[in-house]
């Protein structure tokens, strides 16, 4: 049976070149980058080279890159680190209702610690309401955090416009760009962000490693305390193989960006357009224009996402659904709910997320299997029969 992996927003396969680059740093060059002997100095040299590779992908300076354990730690560090550092200046934070749980749960915790948080809603197209954001700003606002590319719909937020507002009001601006880096061009200077989170395993690097871009001059309280690693911004012995992997993944992503925009976009569009044409009562969630090239979030009336996911999985196709959230509750996707999508369509939603490793044959196979699978599920659906 053919296997198709269209769940690249969950994680991606490690690129074989990334794996090769990492290998020597387990058995041979295993030194601690803080050690002054040759083993340590070798690790330090390659680690700094990786820092440059990461910086190059996002238009930053190497010293503005702090290595972390991944997107969640980067988000936690940015929010908690800036909020607590600026507490004397104010206690108000603005974010959006469609952020990743790494942002939302951190904000909820900060609320318990005395901060006030405004959650800006999104319109049906997935773009956050800028007028609401603007009117939410007050003198006590110290931090603004808006994601670049939404993980569920792929919608791209107008960061440069938000950054302008943040700059004019002297508010620190963070973006969770975990689903953007390596997929669309990201230039921190052009975007005007102060902090940016990225994750290695979303761009064909290893899991357990990520980075936080911190614009020169921006101060924050470190999340982890200990040794003076990462210029005292993140304590803990550096994960050298992971960092090498992230660096190589960034270098490859940079080389492949234009191919990603054309070839992957072409595959996604063919998949989406053919599904909409062949499968009645199907629809796209979120904007079709302001969107990263590798994601489509589709709803199929009269189906249920988890059941559809299992059925597709039995036929070798891996996707994800907003039908039920990962916390194990009955609550469906907070993102699709925030977009005002009716609950039956949220329950019947499936996210296809492609990568540069996706092929035309993968799309052909999905287009062969999906219509039959949906027809079969609808045949046994009382609600679809009665629609």
């Amino acid at each position, binding site marked *: 049976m053919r296997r198709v992996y269209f769940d690249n927003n969950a994680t991606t396969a490690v690129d074989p070149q990334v794996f090769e680059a990492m290998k020597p740093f387990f058995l041979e060059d295993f030194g601690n980058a803080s050690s002054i002997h040759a083993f340590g100095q070798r690790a330090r040299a390659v680690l700094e080279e990786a820092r440059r590779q990461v910086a190059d992908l996002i238009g930053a300076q190497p010293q503005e890159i702090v290595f972390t354990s991944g997107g969640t730690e980067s988000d936690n560090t940015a929010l908690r680190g800036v909020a607590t550092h600026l507490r004397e200046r104010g206690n108000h934070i603005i974010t959006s209702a469609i952020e990743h749980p790494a942002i939302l749960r951190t904000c909820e915790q900060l609320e318990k610690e005395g901060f006030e948080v405004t959650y800006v809603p999104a319109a049906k197209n997935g773009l956050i309401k800028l007028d609401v954001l603007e009117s939410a700003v007050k003198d006590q606002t110290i931090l603004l955090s808006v994601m670049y590319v939404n993980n569920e719909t792929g919608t791209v937020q107008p960061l440069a416009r938000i950054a302008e507002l943040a700059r004019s009001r002297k508010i620190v601006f963070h973006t969770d760009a975990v689903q953007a880096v390596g997929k669309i061009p990201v230039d921190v200077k052009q975007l005007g962000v102060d902090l940016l989170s990225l994750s290695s395993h979303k761009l064909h690097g290893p899991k357990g490693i990520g980075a936080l871009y911190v614009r020169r001059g921006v101060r924050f309280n470190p999340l982890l305390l200990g040794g003076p690693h990462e210029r005292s911004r993140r304590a803990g012995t550096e994960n050298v193989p992971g960092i090498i992997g992230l660096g190589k993944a960034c270098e490859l992503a940079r080389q492949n960006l234009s191919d990603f925009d054309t070839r992957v976009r072409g595959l996604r569009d063919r998949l989406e357009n053919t599904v909409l044409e062949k499968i009645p009562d199907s629809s796209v969630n979120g904007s079709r224009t302001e969107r990263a090239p590798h994601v489509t979030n589709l709803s199929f009336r*009269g189906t*249920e996402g*988890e*059941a559809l996911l*299992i*059925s597709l*999985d*039995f036929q070798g196709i891996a996707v994800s659904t907003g*039908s*039920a959230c990962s916390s*194990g*509750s*009955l609550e469906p996707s907070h993102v699709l709910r925030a977009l005002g999508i009716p*609950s*039956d369509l949220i*329950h019947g939603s499936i996210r296809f997320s492609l990568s540069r490793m996706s092929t035309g044959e993968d799309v052909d196979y999905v287009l062969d299997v999906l219509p039959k699978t949906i027809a*079969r599920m609808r*045949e*046994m*659906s*009382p*609600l*679809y*029969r009665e629609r």
Partner: protein
Amino acid sequence: MYSPTVRRLVAELPNSGRLSGVASSRVENPICGDVLELYVSVADGCIAEARFQATGCPAAIAAGAAITILSEGKSVEAARRITVEQLLEFLEGLPVHKRHGADMAVRALRQALEGGY
């Protein structure tokens, strides 16, 4: 999250369909929107055929399929005595927040058999 049995039942949908002119029932869960329909034909005091239709999560679908498999060939009295625990055992368990799927299926079978056949 879901057992291999639940996953297989959802992928294969055994006994899905409708029967006409037989005892039937419809059970709904207003909280999550699941709908389960059950159709049972009875001959000589035994359940000859059972079919189900469902709109809902894997738990509801798998429980619907499982109740048809468990009840077919049983006497009406024995079918009425099928419990939620027996169904859960057959399914190799359900996530705690999805156990209502098994409740719905047991309720649907008892309702269908109450309605006359």
